[in-house]
């Protein structure tokens, strides 16, 4: 017994020393830049390290720390650090968070810190985070969503949602695979409902004359149609049995494994399928509209934002300029499988295949998330409404009525 206690203490003392010496080597007088680096699938650890080292080799007076943060925890980690008064210099954000962050007075216009060369090289269409005439977040990844078709199950590229459903019914009847992937479990984004909502010509809010958002209108005819459609897909058994327990993370692998006909997905589909070893041919197509409505895919952009209370904003600007060179940014786009946001990279040969063609076409008619305050809560409320309808506890109309009312109350309260 005594020996154990003694050896434990010896061990403690040893590491204690390690710990003290570990603390002493603090970098003197370097400006230090911290970047919250969202973990996109496909983004390798090697790339992150190489980028960090290459930058510091060119700017030896800057200590750069690129911190990998899982997407699921990024928002929470960011809000904690802002509320605590110690944000990073830079962070990748969902562009839809920008208004919230602006409301918290947490970010600065990034255009003030980035060179014109970098700014002019970025497609204007992707600069979504323009508020009050200033650009608050530099687009880092922008991609419209597309439909991917598993050619070993079907060759039908549907023109309408109704057609897609009919073909999904056939797949389920003729094979023992699923017709279409539909994540039914809440995750941080409301993507799947948005696909159907936009496809039915619906929207989240009515637009006031001055460009601000009015009442929540998810419960109008288009919204109800979208949700009814989702419920019918589920009821008829066209989606995976466990769809209610599947967020996007669990649902999409079912498609990669070749077990479903259709999936509405983003640019990462190709690299994800490679990683999962998918052994079927896939066609990349447009997410259809409902009959009589044009294809209106959702487009999601992520941005890099710069935080007001951080110390070394100028050095952070240098990092942005460095990162947006083709050498690094194009590689980044390639790894995560997103179409480039920079004009120079878009011309590179690796971005000219069928996937990127579909993505570029989708970008034309695409519609983004509403850029609003309280988006996280709105998303949660509508997600719950979708769940209620899928569980059969409320009719789609009821569920969306309740949700719209709740969203309006919540916004009145902000």
């Amino acid at each position, binding site marked *: 017994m005594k020996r154990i206690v003694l050896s434990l203490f010896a061990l403690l003392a040893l590491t*204690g020393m390690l710990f003290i010496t570990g603390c002493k080597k603090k970098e003197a007088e370097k400006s230090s830049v911290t970047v919250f680096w969202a973990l*996109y699938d496909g983004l390798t650890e090697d790339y992150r390290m190489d980028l960090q080292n290459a930058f510091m080799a060119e700017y030896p007076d800057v200590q750069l720390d690129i911190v990998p943060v899982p997407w699921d925890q990024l928002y929470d980690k960011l809000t904690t650090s802002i*509320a605590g008064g110690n944000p990073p210099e830079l962070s990748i954000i969902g562009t839809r968070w920008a208004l919230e962050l602006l409301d918290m007075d947490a970010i600065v216009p990034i255009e003030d810190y980035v060179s014109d060369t970098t700014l002019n090289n970025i497609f204007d269409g992707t600069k979504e985070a323009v508020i009050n005439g200033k650009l608050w977040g530099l687009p880092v990844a922008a991609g419209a969503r597309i439909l991917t078709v598993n050619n070993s199950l079907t060759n039908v590229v549907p023109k309408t949602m109704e057609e897609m459903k009919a073909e999904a019914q056939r797949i389920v009847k003729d094979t023992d695979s699923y017709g279409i992937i539909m994540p039914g479990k809440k995750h941080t984004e409301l993507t799947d409902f948005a696909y159907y909502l936009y496809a039915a010509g619906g929207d989240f809010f009515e637009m006031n004359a001055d460009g601000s958002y009015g009442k929540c209108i998810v419960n109008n005819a288009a919204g109800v149609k979208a949700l009814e459609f989702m419920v019918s897909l589920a009821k008829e058994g066209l989606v995976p049995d466990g769809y209610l327990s599947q967020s996007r993370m669990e649902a999409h692998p079912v498609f990669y494994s070749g077990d479903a006909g259709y999936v509405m997905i983003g640019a990462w589909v190709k690299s994800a399928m490679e990683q999962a*070893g998918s052994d079927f041919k896939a066609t990349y197509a447009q997410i259809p509209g409902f009959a009589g409505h044009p294809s209106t895919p959702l487009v999601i952009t992520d941005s890099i934002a710069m935080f007001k209370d951080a110390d070394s904003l100028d050095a952070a600007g240098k990092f942005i300029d460095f990162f947006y060179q083709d050498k690094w940014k194009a590689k980044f786009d390639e790894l995560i499988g997103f179409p480039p946001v920079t004009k120079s990279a878009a011309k590179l040969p690796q971005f000219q295949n069928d996937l990127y063609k579909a993505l570029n076409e989708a970008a034309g008619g695409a519609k983004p998330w509403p850029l609003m305050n309280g988006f996280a809560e709105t998303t949660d409320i509508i997600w719950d409404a979708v769940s209620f309808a899928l569980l059969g506890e409320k009719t789609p109309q009821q569920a969306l009525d309740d949700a719209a009312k709740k969203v309006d109350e919540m916004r009145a309260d902000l």
Partner: protein
Amino acid sequence: MSTRWRDRGKIPMIILALVLLFIMLFPFFVMLSTMFKSSTEIYQKPPTWIPRDFTFMNFSKVWGQYQLLGYFKSSLIVGIGTTVLNTIIIVPAAYAISRFKFPGRKFMLYFLLIIQMFSPVIVIISLFKIFVQVGLLDSYIGLIFADTVFCISFTTWLMHGYFSSIPKEIEEAARIDGCTRLGTLRRIMIPIAAPGLVTAMIYTFIQAWNDFLFPLSFIKSQTKMPLTLGIYQFVGRWSTQWEMLTVAAFLALIPVLILFYIIEKQLVSGLAGGAVKG
């Protein structure tokens, strides 16, 4: 005589234990099965217990490419640091509560229980603000402080129970021999209460080693991230690399298991000593 008592019903008890053991270890069987699968196989249907292509690739990848060693180091520093600090704090406190008469003694005991009612979730924001002001953010020391604060109450209680179970006469005899109060603590009480102390230390170490919420909120630089956070690197935005995650989970488990193996006996008697008089 007593052996015959135990013999009856022994076999059914062992069988019951085996069944329960199977249930308790089920996720770890899944872990063992998954960590030898390839990244393509984890998403193949139907899933099998025995990997179709057995591979050790995941180990070298996790260890090499993802620098797990660095995360290990951070976890170890925080775990051991917390254990040391917590021990230094609680031993005198528990000794005072169990052996001294002072106003507020009883209140202290209730008070330790009340502290257990607060979850780290509740204090995170304020703690973050404090850490910013005193410059403890993104430091091992900050993590060690935060982890310690949430270990103090349970371990003090445990040690208090243990000290109280030691007969007062032993201590008094030593004092007659000329020991001071602190001298008896060092020479008599701590050696006798060693099993309890080891239990408290192990408990603390495990709490710190397994902590997730504090490093998630307080650690910014990657070099200081502990294992629990490092493992989340395998949770991507669109899918989870289960084959890697399970390898990392497995590796994270090993040090704690070794610790348990060494002190298993003391742990049981330590918990008894602490709780009996708790």
